[in-house]
């Protein structure tokens, strides 16, 4: 009987890990569809950002209540995973709580801590569900999150965590009840801090029922974890992994600095100083300006899209969004991910990418959204996982203006004035120092 359970466990873990790695590789491939960009300078500053913004969740603490609740879920997620190690080793070897005899008195202490964390996770997730569905916090229930997949995704994640934590606590309570009965396979430990209070509910059950219950919770808990692990790459919850590389690779320059376009810089230079133009310039090379689709964005923009957990801090800080304009930085990120996933699926089926008549610009993100941005950097400042929606907006704007000559009349006039009068307004350059008189 035991050996069958062990074989089943090994097979299940193998499948879960195989599927997870396969999907993660696919996401890596999708991210690398983006333009190359070197973001490896100044490693010490990058490690510091990783420590502060990813591990320390610095930005979250702008709102301390939510930050603390989120920190519980995060710490719970990481620390309870130590317990998973024991569960996996038990599963493979067919033993039960194999760390208990090794760790002695430390064992119930550790499990106690895990139980406290599990309870904190449980409470936090319930509060989060209430905030989303009953209190309806604006950024969590409006705009792109009004319905459909984004709304369900958020709720599934919270429900999943609640179920997992409940199973963990129930498993421990049933275990304590069995220990008290002196059931043979159940090694004696000290009481666990939280589940001891659940144990009285289980004391009247027979040994058989309790073993069944304990085993059910054990299996459901570990299978639940495998399922959740494989749910991650399809969900906004992927931020639990990508927040770390995303913090590390975040741009280090002042936020006001826009990325330079070297090819245009050179174009202008050769126009002004033709003697500098390379003799063998390739006249046939087709230059592409700005971004029309996800391939034209940098890999960091694409990793940003996969790192977004749709919390909406960006959109609620966005001046355009707050005043009722169509622009929502969160939607920019969600659209980028949706488009990238669409392209990824096509590559999965056809082995290569073929034009499908759609582009990120226009089919996902509209001109009206792009035109509403004031480049104020509020979205970039807010993002707890170091995403820059602004960087994508600017690249799409470049494509609109330089490839499509698609800009409002007033902007065309402004461009004309700058070109002819060296100022965005129609004044004579001779009057530039007119204020001196």
């Amino acid at each position, binding site marked *: 009987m035991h050996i069958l359970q062990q074989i089943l466990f090994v097979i299940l873990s193998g499948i879960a890990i195989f599927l997870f790695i396969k999907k993660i590789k696919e996401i890596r491939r999708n991210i690398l569809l983006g333009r190359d960009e070197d973001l490896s300078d100044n490693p010490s500053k990058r490690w510091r950002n990783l420590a502060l913004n990813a591990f320390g969740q610095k930005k979250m603490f702008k709102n301390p209540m939510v930050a603390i609740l989120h920190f519980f879920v995060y710490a719970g997620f990481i620390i309870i995973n130590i317990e998973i190690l024991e569960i996996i080793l038990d599963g493979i070897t067919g033993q039960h709580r194999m760390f208990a005899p090794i760790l002695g008195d430390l064992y119930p202490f550790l499990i106690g801590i895990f139980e406290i964390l599990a309870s904190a996770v449980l409470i936090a997730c319930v509060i989060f569900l209430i905030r989303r569905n009953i209190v309806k916090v604006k950024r969590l229930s409006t705009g792109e999150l009004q319905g459909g997949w984004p709304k369900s995704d958020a709720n599934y994640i919270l429900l999943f965590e609640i179920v997992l934590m409940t199973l963990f606590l129930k498993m421990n309570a049933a275990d304590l009840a069995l220990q008290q009965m002196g059931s043979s396979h159940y090694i004696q430990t000290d009481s666990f801090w939280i589940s001891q209070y659940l144990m009285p509910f289980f004391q009247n059950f027979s040994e058989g029922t309790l073993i069944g219950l304990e085993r059910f919770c054990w299996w459901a808990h570990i299978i639940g974890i495998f399922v959740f692990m494989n749910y991650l790459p399809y969900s906004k919850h992927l931020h639990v992994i990508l927040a770390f590389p995303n913090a590390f690779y975040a741009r280090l320059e002042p936020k*006001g600095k826009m990325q330079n376009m070297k090819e245009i810089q050179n174009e202008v230079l050769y126009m002004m100083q033709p003697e500098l133009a390379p003799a063998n310039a390739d006249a046939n090379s087709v230059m592409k300006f700005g971004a029309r689709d996800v391939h034209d964005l940098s890999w960091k923009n694409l990793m940003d899209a996969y790192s977004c957990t749709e919390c909406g801090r960006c959109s609620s*800080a966005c*001046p355009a969004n707050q005043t009722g304009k169509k622009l929502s930085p969160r939607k920019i990120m969600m659209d980028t991910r949706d488009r990238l996933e669409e392209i990824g699926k096509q590559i999965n089926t056809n082995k290569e990418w073929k034009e499908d008549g759609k582009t990120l610009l226009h089919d996902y993100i509209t001109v009206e959204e792009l035109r509403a941005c004031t480049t104020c950097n509020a979205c970039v400042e807010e993002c707890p996982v170091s995403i820059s929606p602004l960087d994508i907006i600017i690249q799409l704007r470049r494509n609109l203006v330089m490839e499509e000559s698609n800009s409002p009349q007033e902007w065309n006039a402004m461009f004309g004035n*700058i070109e002819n009068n060296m100022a965005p307004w129609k004044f004579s350059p001779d009057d*530039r120092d007119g204020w001196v008189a």
Partner: protein
Amino acid sequence: MIVKTYAEYQANSETPEILFWVGCAGSFDARAQKVTKAFVEILNHVGIQFAILGKEEMCTGDPARRAGNEFLFQMMAYNNIQTLNMYGVRKIVTTCPHCFNTLKNEYPELGGNYEVISHAVYLQQLIKDGKLKMKENGSFKGKRITYHDSCYLGRSNDIYEAPREVLQALDSDLVELKRCKTNGLCCGAGGAQMFKEDEKGETRINMERTKDVLESGASVVASNCPFCLTMLNDGIKNNEKENEIQALDIAEMIAKSI
């Protein structure tokens, strides 16, 4: 008012301490010209040898770049860098945070390397070094004033304290807006919005920001940007509150207090 161009300095084989980058708004916009003159008054008062480029100055290209017109931006940058490098300019002070950001952050990789200082930081240094002293009983003493962070000094370049320290020198009662510093709300002009109508929405961004300003109960809202100044002025006028609150640049406030 003593204002000389870089060319004039060079003709006399002199080198000014700083180049004052006036910017298009500071040169042409009637309201922003007052800020330019106020800043010159301060420089004259302290006795700093400064130059302007005069007719040789051109738009930095900021609005073109942010609207998406990189070609035009590169053209402007090329021409400005040629001029600045020809004169061997080392130190630039700006009264416009958009010019500041472009000159400081975006010109270096195009070959324009200068020490670029915003007037907020420059004034703070002058005050700190004791070169700029406020007169007793200045017009802002004890008055309730508030400060609007421009996006291009604030979030874009993390300059939050310098302008506040400048205002503290006025001995007034400085109150913060409910959205300030990293949380500051944009005035609505950045990203080339200054040059076009707002997109469709419930309200204009400057009206939303003016709400914060009026709620503060201050009699002056200080800013550091000619575009913020226009936007806040419009917002105040639209609310018919011009008798209760004024929008002023920090340079104007200092110029009135020396």
